């Protein structure tokens, strides 16, 4: 009875973890199995024929899987760099400099926080179509160059930076740029790390916007590529399909396992998805 009481929470948690982890296990297992074993529904971890090479080669050969991954990296990094470059100075100005329309801008930023990307998609799509920019990296990245969430987050964090140090730095002849990037941002590195995780995960996993502006297979980021891939395979070869899913999911899952604390902080302090 005492023993049961002690291990009951572990037991419940373990039972709950089965459905949480089953998809990952099944995905990995199927990606190693040969197509002939597809009817084998047993959870036995060792496949009779180890066909991982064949499955992964098929996933990489049927569709340009390497290209999808590269597109994902380009789009995610492009967005993140632009977001940091625009948000950090704006947040610094809002937090530490007095300028006209400062309150108006802060209110607009907070109002914009409530507007989901999907609500802006239609006019942005029409604009990009009119300027002949559909099917470009620019179309995939530009709506996210400004992250009002980043401005909000950095503004909160910069506000607590001591004004005395900024004053002292000004007297010592530091330029405002140096103060912003070299001093104030350095004091907010945890916020920067959390935001970077949030932004990279959100855009690596995003399907909605790429699905709207990209029809060219060669420009597809991983989620859209996965959709193209399952169309091509049309459910015939689950081994290859699961190999593709593994390739696409792996980067974020591996990063999460190595930087668990940063990931959890990044994805939850945001709250707004």
């Amino acid at each position, binding site marked *: 009875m005492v023993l049961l009481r002690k291990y009951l929470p572990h037991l419940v948690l373990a039972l709950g973890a089965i459905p949480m982890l089953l998809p990952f296990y099944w995905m990995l297992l199927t990606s190693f199995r040969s197509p002939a074993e597809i009817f084998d529904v047993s959870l036995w971890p060792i496949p009779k024929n180890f066909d991982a090479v064949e499955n992964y080669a098929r996933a990489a050969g049927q569709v340009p899987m390497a290209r999808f991954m590269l597109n994902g990296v380009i789009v995610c990094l492009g967005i993140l760099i632009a977001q940091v470059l625009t948000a950090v100075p704006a947040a610094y100005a809002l937090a530490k400099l007095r300028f006209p329309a400062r309150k108006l801008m802060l209110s607009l930023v907070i109002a914009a926080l409530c507007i989901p990307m*999907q609500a802006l998609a239609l006019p942005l799509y029409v604009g990009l179509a009119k300027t002949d920019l559909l099917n470009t990296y620019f179309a995939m990245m530009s709506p996210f160059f400004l992250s009002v969430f980043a401005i909000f987050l950095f503004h909160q964090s910069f506000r607590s930076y001591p004004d005395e140090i900024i004053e002292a730095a000004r007297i010592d002849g530091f330029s405002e740029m140096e103060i912003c990037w070299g001093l104030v941002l350095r004091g907010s590195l945890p916020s920067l790390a959390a935001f970077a995780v949030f932004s990279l995960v959100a855009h690596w996993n995003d399907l909605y916007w790429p699905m709207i502006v990209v029809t060219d297979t060669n420009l597809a980021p991983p989620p859209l590529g996965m959709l193209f891939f399952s169309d091509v395979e049309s459910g015939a070869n689950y081994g290859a399909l699961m190999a593709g*899913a593994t390739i696409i999911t792996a980067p974020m899952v591996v990063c999460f*396992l190595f930087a668990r604390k940063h990931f959890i902080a990044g994805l939850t302090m945001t709250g707004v998805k």
Partner: protein
Amino acid sequence: MSAIELPLAQPVKARPRRSAADRRMARLGLMFAAPSALLLLGFYIVPMIVLAVFSVTDYQLGALSTRFTGFDNFTKAFHDPVFLRALKNTVIYAAIVIPLGVCLALGIALLVYGRKKSRAFWEVAYFLPVTATLVAMATVWQFLLHPSLGPVNAAIKAMGYEPVSFLSNPTLLIPTMAMIGVWQVLGFNMVLFLAGLTAIPKDLYEAARLDGAKSAVDRFFIVTWPMLGPTTVFVVVTTSISAFKVFETVAVLTRGRFGSETLLFDLYLEGFEYSNTGYAAALTLLFLLIVLVLSIGQMWHMDRKVHY
């Protein structure tokens, strides 16, 4: 230069000098904020105005002429069987995801919170679905739930029941997608609850114990539940917003077939597949209205952290 002049400054001249510094600061502030302000204008404010204008016209991308139609698009929406079905589906989806996603997450958080050595392990196990690409994982679920090839139905058959066609029986489609939605959101909500639990002062439990709250259940209702109030509100709001944005699972599992459209998927079809831009703009505004109503709670939550 100003550093050299500084010692010579008379007290009387201090005022204009200060305003020169103020002007410099204002100039710098505008310069620093300008890129973001321009992007805010170009990617938020102008699109919102354009969206509102579209919604009162019959504009179609590529059409030669466009007419002003007043509120016709909005009246049409409430007589459009597809939109009404999408709305109903989304509400059913949210009605499953919100209570399950919040209550189960709270339960898991309470269990995980009490673990010392194994806490990190359980956190990883339950948080893993949050980081995984939903499109890829929905494809995996499609396979898991396959009527003849999937292990879920194999288990159901092994227990002596008929296999369930989760993804072709129209009445089961939305609940199946909702279960995937719960699977995805649990870890996220669990971490929010864990943060809330950490913030509860330990002596409150001690005080409750001394006041006669003997069992853990009593202490939960006397201390934990009221102290978690703000966290719970926040979790409910974020879960509802993400529930109303369900898109990926539909795009992967059904493409809106068998009457399984959700709000965002219907919007996608009207706006980007059929190019009914004007009508889709009206639907977008309705979608935005729902999200804004839900966001008010979140705004309020954030506002307490904001000081101008």
